[in-house]
């Protein structure tokens, strides 16, 4: 019977497809930049699109603590059994500890639930859907203007309504503190406010501690739900405690925040997808209920998270020698970026640019909001093969001592 079927000619292929009405989706604004970069054949091309750290030779950087952790793990010959839905316990504990700090009252009273997620995106996805399902008091999420491009579709897809508060001041290339306070004061109670914990993406503009304090007070007065996105802890100032200061301050002030963490950048674990989502609850009893609902959310998406990256991160965080090495390497990465900022500003000056480039030095973290307009960005890409996002954001991590001069030259050419 089986053989017979092989010799029957296939039925005429029907001309219509289920997918005839599927439109071609536009390329992703951020990841699409890398794809365009790959196609470019110019030897001088620069990829300043994705926020992925590069060393001073423009090469991907695998941290030494990561290699050591991998060797350790390999020697243990562990099995590959499913993780729990909430992930690897060693990882989630140390992930929360890293963010909240050893003195954290929240950790001591066990009133946080932290689940392992698929890096920062996965964490935001879980968080957005958790809020959509359980935060019935408001559908509104306020993002800073501008914010990471992917925030909007994540929250929208979860059924939330996107709103914005003033954040970046184009006239100063700095923080619009008064604008932010003004907008926050008008947010309806129980709205969700998204705050970038440090190294704001895409602008690199962070509030100062005094400003954070005022924001925290006002947010409390307005009774807003705080959603912190911390994708760059350690990467901003080079100091993990300094970078977590805002998160810890808000918690100390009594905000029961929700928090997304990523280890893509600060441990260089990009493709391993390591992240965490934390809900600070009233008490341990509430933690149980919230945890049970997070599991219900996670199971129909991917059942349980991937082991490899979480195991590496946990090993680093829980092995004192490796932890020390890691702190040094994060500091090193942050320092190289600070140096590149200084060199870029200096080079622009020596090119003869009359613009004020102070913001290149003042901004913090992986990204620099150059202030370039879309047409200038387009020219920079077309004429100099420098790839960046349309909003004028460049990843400083893609700048090296070898190409900073070329970059300055290009920027000057399109802005003079």
């Amino acid at each position: 019977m089986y053989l017979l079927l092989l010799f029957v000619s296939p039925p005429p292929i029907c001309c219509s497809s289920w997918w005839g009405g599927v439109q071609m989706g536009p390329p992703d604004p951020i990841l699409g930049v890398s794809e365009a970069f790959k196609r470019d054949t110019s030897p001088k091309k620069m990829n300043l699109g994705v926020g992925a750290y590069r060393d001073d030779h423009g090469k991907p950087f695998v941290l030494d603590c990561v290699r050591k952790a991998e060797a350790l793990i390999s020697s243990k010959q562990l099995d590959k059994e499913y993780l729990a839905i909430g992930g690897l316990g060693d990882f989630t504990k140390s992930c929360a500890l890293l963010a909240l700090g050893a003195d954290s009252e929240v950790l001591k009273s066990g009133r946080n639930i932290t689940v392992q997620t698929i890096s920062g995106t996965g964490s935001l996805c879980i968080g957005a859907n958790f809020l959509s399902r359980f935060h019935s008091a408001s559908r509104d999420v306020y993002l800073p203007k501008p914010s990471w491009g992917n925030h909007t579709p994540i929250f929208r897809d979860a059924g939330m309504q996107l709103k914005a508060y003033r954040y970046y001041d184009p006239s100063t290339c700095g923080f619009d503190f008064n604008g932010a306070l003004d907008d926050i004061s008008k947010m309806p109670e129980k709205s969700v406010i998204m705050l970038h914990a440090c190294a704001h993406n895409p602008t690199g503009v962070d509030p100062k501690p005094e400003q954070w304090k005022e924001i925290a007070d006002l947010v409390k007065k307005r009774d807003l739900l705080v959603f912190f996105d911390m994708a760059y802890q350690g990467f901003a100032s080079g100091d993990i405690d300094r970078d977590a200061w805002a998160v810890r301050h808000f918690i100390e002030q009594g905000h029961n925040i929700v928090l997304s963490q990523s280890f893509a950048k600060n441990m260089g674990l990009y493709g391993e997808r390591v992240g965490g989502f934390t809900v600070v609850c009233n008490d341990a009893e509430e933690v149980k209920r919230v945890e049970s609902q997070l599991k219900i959310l996670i199971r129909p998406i991917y059942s349980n998270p991937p082991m490899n990256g979480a195991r590496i991160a946990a090993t680093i965080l829980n092995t004192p020698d490796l932890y020390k090495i890691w702190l040094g390497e994060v500091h090193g990465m942050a320092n190289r970026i600070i140096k590149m900022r200084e060199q870029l500003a200096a080079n622009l000056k020596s090119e003869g640019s009359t613009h004020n480039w102070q913001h290149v030095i003042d901004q913090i973290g992986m990204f620099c909001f150059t202030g370039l307009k879309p047409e200038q960005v387009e020219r920079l890409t077309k004429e100099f093969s420098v790839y960046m996002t349309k909003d004028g954001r460049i990843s400083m991590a893609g700048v090296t001592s070898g190409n900073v001069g070329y970059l300055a030259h290009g920027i000057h050419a399109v802005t003079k």
Partner: protein
Amino acid sequence: MPASRHFCQKVPQATPVAVFKLSNDFKEDPNPMKVNLGVGAYRTDEGQPWVLPVVKKVEKLIVADNRLNHEYLPILGLPEFRSSASKIALGEDSPAIQENRVGAVQCLGGTGALKMGAEFLRRWYNGNDNMKTPVYVSAPTWENHNSVFANAGFEDVRPYKYWDAEKRGLDLAGFLGDLETAPKHSIFVLHACAHNPTGTDPTHMEWTQVAEVMKRRKLFVFFDSAYQGFASGCLDKDAWAVRYFVTQGFEMFCAQSFSKNFGLYNERVGNLTIVARDADNVRRVLSQMEKIVRVTWSNPPSQGARLVAITLNTAELFAEWKDNVKTMADRVLLMRASLQAKLQALGTPGTWDHITQQIGMFSFTGLNPKQVEYMIKERSIYLMASGRINMCGLTTKNIDYVAKSIHETVVNVQ
């Protein structure tokens, strides 16, 4: 009262997922004779997890290769993984692959592949909003099927007749009947092989009948392939149904999992294979898949995909893998034969041929909830309330105890 203190006050406690609760209860049971016939993961004859020898080998290669890094994969995943994974499902010489009308999305396990497929279908399948399009899952089915599709926004997830409890086999008439009466364009989730939880697969003849109705009534084919290689021990044999549907000209999705056949459970290695009318349709579908991936996990984890890709694309490793898969499948077949023989020898009431006729990791024993409770409480043998057992939980050391316990249960508990 500090701001936002009340946010979580109204969050209710959710009931735990049954299969995990079972594992928990087993863990806490002090009985030295206890047996876990619950969770679907392979176990050796020593009752231990088994990291495939080929996996250990490739892992060492990866750790030693200093050219490899941890950079982001593309949104749709590792290209070598996607294409080789689809080849595994469709066959090296698949006409669909040759005609360039196959696409793939690397996903987080089989669950992730189902999720991506479901989300895409809800947005793009039959018109732009498929919340009311019926999705049919077998009665019974893997319990997460319902949740995946419901959470993707499908409001109408229904059962199609599948398991005939009385005759302990496939309810073909019921299955075909539901296909005939399903609203046109309904989506059907089909188990490619080794049906979970019943272990009962349609024969080739029965599959052709299913295909005929589905084609005539324009129903959408969504295969769930979590056990390829694991069922019969042969990759091609286990893919017969999927490949047959391709020859019949269907556009379809196939969610593949490499959790069981590679033993890579916790690395979340899955692939959504898409068979479409032509390359242009594939292109557009993949571009929209990217949008969905981007708001869910941005890009998939690299470790597991790398491992599978290296294995599938290196001749000696591929051969070794197939051998490892056969080892697992053979042990399961041995346990099936053993259990059936022992029950027969004991003269246990009822017929037990279904144990050897069923295929794959699971067997629907036919034990009722009362009997299951007895097995758990009185004999410390843990199985699902449905009577499903994981054959991998059986070993040459515990099979006598299990057989005797089943016998005692059937005799004493009705």
